[in-house]
């Protein structure tokens, strides 16, 4: 099953996004919290993201959700630090962190492939709110 990693500048925020997403999921999936800085405050940390990706992967790949700024940079760098085979099946979703994670989690929970989970999550970010 596709695994998910949530990279927010806030570890608490990442956890609530995960909690909300799992509430909508049709089955248990692996979502790992990689939020927060190494010093415990707001920020992101490359090592944390690398470890989260390794935990989230069971061979079907991993999709990463990011909030803004350095979260994107950190996630990109984390992917660069992965070994060859794993690196090929990890992507960052071009989606808002909450809506994307919910959409992606729901799709992953019904057995979606990495490509399907990515498409679902990125589609969910394009809905108009007014």
């Amino acid at each position, binding site marked *: 099953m596709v695994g998910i990693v949530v990279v927010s500048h806030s570890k608490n925020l990442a956890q609530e996004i995960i909690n909300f997403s799992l509430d909508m999921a049709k089955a248990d999936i692996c979502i790992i919290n990689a939020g927060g*800085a*190494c*010093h415990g*405050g*707001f*920020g*992101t*940390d*490359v*090592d944390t993201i690398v470890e989260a990706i390794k935990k989230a992967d069971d061979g079907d790949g991993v999709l990463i959700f990011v909030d*803004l*700024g*350095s979260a994107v*940079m*950190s996630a*990109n*760098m984390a992917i660069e630090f992965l070994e060859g085979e794993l690196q090929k099946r990890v992507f960052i979703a071009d989606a808002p962190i909450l809506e994307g994670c919910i959409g992606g989690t729901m799709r992953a929970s019904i057995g979606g492939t990495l490509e399907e989970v990515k498409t679902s999550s990125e589609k969910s970010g394009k809905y108009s709110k007014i």
Partner: protein
Amino acid sequence: MICKDKLVEFLNSVCDDIIRNKEFLNELDNNTSDGDHGSNMSRGFKEVKEKINGIGDESISFILKTISMTLISSIGGASGLLYGSSFLKVAELLDGREFIDKNDIIRIGEVVIENIKNRGKIDIGCKSMLDTIVPAFKTIELCSEENYDSQKMFSEVEKSAYEGMNSTKTMKATYGRASFLGDESIGYIDAGAASSYIIIKSIIEELRLVENWELRIESWQRTIVNWRIKGGVSYGRNCCGIS
């Protein structure tokens, strides 16, 4: 020519200067962001200082890689990633080298600037560290082409870096959290541009001392030759200033 011992000395000075300017950098950052650039940089460079003083026997490339990983994992924001990844690029460039010489400086500038542009998706004029770094390295290129002597080049490079940093005051931020402020981000020096200036200035100060040291040795050598020609222990000692 800078060997690894000299490099560690340089880097210690850079660390000290960043740490010393923690509050100044925080104040600048507070104008357009969350006010923690100084704290983050200070934390990162304190850890760098601890790490590099235990690895003096390792290669130049290893030392730079260690700095890279330390900054990436301890600064915790875009700056750590941009500075850290730049050190990694320089480490790769200097792999296997026993020293850094003048001919390496331009290539170092090229890889650092390319890295920051690609990774940060920024360019000069975006109100960032590049606005300090690009003018500094352009000046190095120009001075090399014009065959400026070292001391004149150091002055020109520092001036370019300073002016580059100051130019960010009139820029509108177009990347990072400051970009959310729009026109309200104008009127303040970018904290990343300032920390880059501090690093460049620190390195220039160290290079000035290296150059002076070489000049001093050259002067002593000339004196020793004169002493041998003229003869006499007392003459030699007086000229060299050796008691």
